[in-house]
């Protein structure tokens, strides 16, 4: 039958993001002085996966028609916690990892609780809780420092025997363990339903409160995974408002580049992963092009704008202008 048409339609956002990433990365690789080798890939992966995971975290609330402006701060908070707890013996570090993840999930849960029971808009709720989480991070790490289990860190930021960056494997594992089951679960679909139409979801008997809680909790968890990985990349913790802000905004940009609608109801975390990779590659292009240093920010801004306008090409094909509105 013509099933494939519908499947293609469902995944067109993701496919667009993959295409964008492949194009940019090919350009990057073609111009890279060292070319395609293990170290270059590992470097790119270590940087890309962090944002990819935070972008995944952002995707879940966005699909539900919400947004999480605190992902960056949960990311930073997790980084600070990890720099305290993921140390010492393997066992101790393992327990630390669990504690970090639990803390992230708890932050997400708090977001969810305020949104559900306080009946506040997600955007403003998470803006406020983000400030609180940053305060907590600052309490934990008044100045940068700390440490992390070196064995674990080296293993995760290095490359596997085959030359595959270990971070990519971590990312794949997160996708398989968190995203895929979520997407196929009842709350995952309920979240999509809510993003599609909140009133209709309510009337259809969707368990909206529970869905919101699960979704934000998972977003917090994912952001904490990102923060944990950051700790492995930097061997330390830092409560930096700037980093939190950058990751939050970039995660939203990655979600959009990944073909997810900010209005909710449509998209995929896999798309966001590639959106994040594409975004990171835009940053990397600075490295391979010889630009005046003071022109670099402008160059990056312009490429970013061009990338986000990429989706506007579809406007050329719209015959019925009503299709422009949702």
């Amino acid at each position, binding site marked *: 039958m013509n099933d494939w048409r519908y499947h293609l339609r469902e995944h067109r956002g993701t496919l667009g993001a993959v295409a964008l990433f492949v194009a940019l990365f090919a350009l990057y690789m073609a111009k890279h002085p060292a070319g395609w080798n293990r170290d270059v890939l590992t470097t790119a992966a270590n940087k890309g996966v962090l944002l990819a995971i935070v972008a995944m975290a952002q995707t879940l609330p966005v699909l539900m028609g919400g947004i999480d402006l605190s992902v960056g701060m949960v990311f930073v908070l997790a980084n600070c916690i990890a720099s305290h707890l993921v140390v010492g013996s393997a066992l101790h570090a393992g327990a630390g990892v669990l504690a970090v993840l639990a803390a992230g999930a708890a932050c997400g849960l708090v977001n969810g609780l305020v949104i559900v029971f306080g009946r506040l808009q997600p955007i403003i709720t998470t803006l406020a809780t983000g400030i609180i989480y940053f305060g907590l991070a600052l309490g934990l790490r008044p100045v940068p420092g700390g440490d992390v289990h070196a064995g674990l860190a080296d293993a995760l930021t290095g490359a596997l025997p085959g030359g595959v960056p270990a971070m990519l494997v971590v990312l794949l594992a997160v996708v398989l363990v968190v995203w895929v089951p979520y997407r196929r679960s009842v709350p995952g679909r*309920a979240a999509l339903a809510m993003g599609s*139409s909140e009133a209709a*979801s309510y*009337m*259809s008997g969707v368990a909206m409160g529970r869905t919101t809680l699960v979704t934000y909790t998972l977003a917090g968890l994912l952001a904490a995974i990102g923060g944990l990985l950051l700790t492995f990349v930097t061997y330390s913790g830092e409560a930096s408002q700037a980093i939190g802000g950058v990751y939050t905004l970039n995660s939203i940009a990655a979600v959009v580049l990944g073909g997810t609608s900010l209005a909710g*109801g449509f998209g995929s975390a896999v798309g966001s992963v590639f959106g994040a990779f594409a975004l990171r590659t835009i940053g990397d292009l600075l490295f391979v092009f010889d630009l005046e240093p003071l022109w670099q920010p402008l160059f990056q801004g312009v490429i970013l704008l061009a990338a986000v306008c990429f989706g506007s090409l579809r406007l050329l094909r719209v015959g019925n*202008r009503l299709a422009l509105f949702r």
Partner: protein
Amino acid sequence: MSDPVLRLVEVSKRYGGVRALERASFACAAGRIHALLGENGAGKSTLIKVMAGVVQPDEGRLLLEGQERRFAHPQEAVAAGIACIFQELSLLPDLSVADNICITNPPRRFGLIDRKAQRRIAQAALQRAGAGDIHPLAPVASLPLSKRQLVEIAKALARAPKILILDEATSALPAAEVKRVFALLRRLRDEGLAIVYISHRMHEVTELADDCSVFRNGSQVASFAAGTRTDAQVVEMMIGRDIAHAFPPKPAPAAAAASPALEVRGLSWAGRLHAVDLAVRPGEIVGLGGLDGQGQRELFLALFGVLRGVSGEVRVDGRPARLAGPRAAKGLGIALVPEDRKTDGLLLPMSVNDNLSLAALDRLSRAGVLQLADEGHAVAGMMRRLAIKAGSGEDAVGTLSGGNQQKVVIGKWLLNTPRVLLLNDLTRGIDVGTKQEIYALVRTLADEGAAVLLYSTDYAELIGCCDRVAVFYDGRIVRWLEGAALTERALVASALNLEEATA
């Protein structure tokens, strides 16, 4: 009547100052189809929202199979076997048809949704609802309204309910589909379901119902077995007066010499419209007939400037018109009452006043500054003229009953005194009394010189209202019906593009 499965006793519901339900009682029994009748704003939808757990009543009791229940959330009503098709559909536009059908209780494997099984369930439910041609993977947003209503019905069926409630669930369906749905409902009744059916189409009620309850001003005023009252009596109970003639008399055909107000030549668009030729003289009401989705909607959108890449020629009052967009169309005196008032016609959270003046802001302002007095005047006048039932003009339009919302959409365009009216399913969800007023209104507008194009899925409306009807098939006008030739039989036959119709 056997023991009722569901009983509501003296239920009241107030919204601020508005009494939607006032000590209303209602009961329905298994194995019977119970029609709920009442004018717009009588409280029917509110009543079924109470049954479905969407709305919590201020007072009163709800008994399900003799047990007193309280539904705090629609989920609980669904779990209790009550499936409801709401007047404003409750489908999720971005999700697939299958996802929608199984939204509350999907089949699961290892705790995750089993998509294959879900698809089977959806297909079966669609088949039962007589919509086997809808692809289960199609996103709901891509379906026209009539198909969506069928999906909604399939969704209700997939829940294997004990009580099925349909709130104007067939209002957008063409006659043929309505017949199929009716057959289905009868079958379900015979299987022992209790069915509550709300419709403003009297002939449907007559055809289908076993029992009837009439509501007025939030209370039940009568409950009786179907067939024990005449239509006239029922209408009298509903609106407190009799209506002699549903449709106003048609004037004698205007002199053919009069130049057309709207003239369309060779209009084509993207394979959905093929060389449509059409001319409407001032004072004329031209109907668009045919099955649903044969290009009538596209014609309206094209005339309103919404479609891009339209070829052909459009003349308004003899001058070639460049239809760049709704704004340009509005400037030419064209008005469009869209199909879906909720998404296309109204700003639900905004007030009735704001909605009414929206299309006429240019007229109601001077140098961009609103003339509040003029606006208030115009809006209040329109509310009176259309007898829009609302607590006050400041109420959000979303709080009005469906029919009154529709009146707001019409009123919005009337404030602009349009030359050409494009009316898409004008009276969907409007009660008999108001319908009559609206038909009279349209006729008056025509008499005052407007040219009217009217699309309806209701053959009676086309026959009663229109001077001529253009029957559409596959984006073309296949036949013009006029005068005595304008009969239901002819409409049906030419809609199917049958050869015999020419006989």
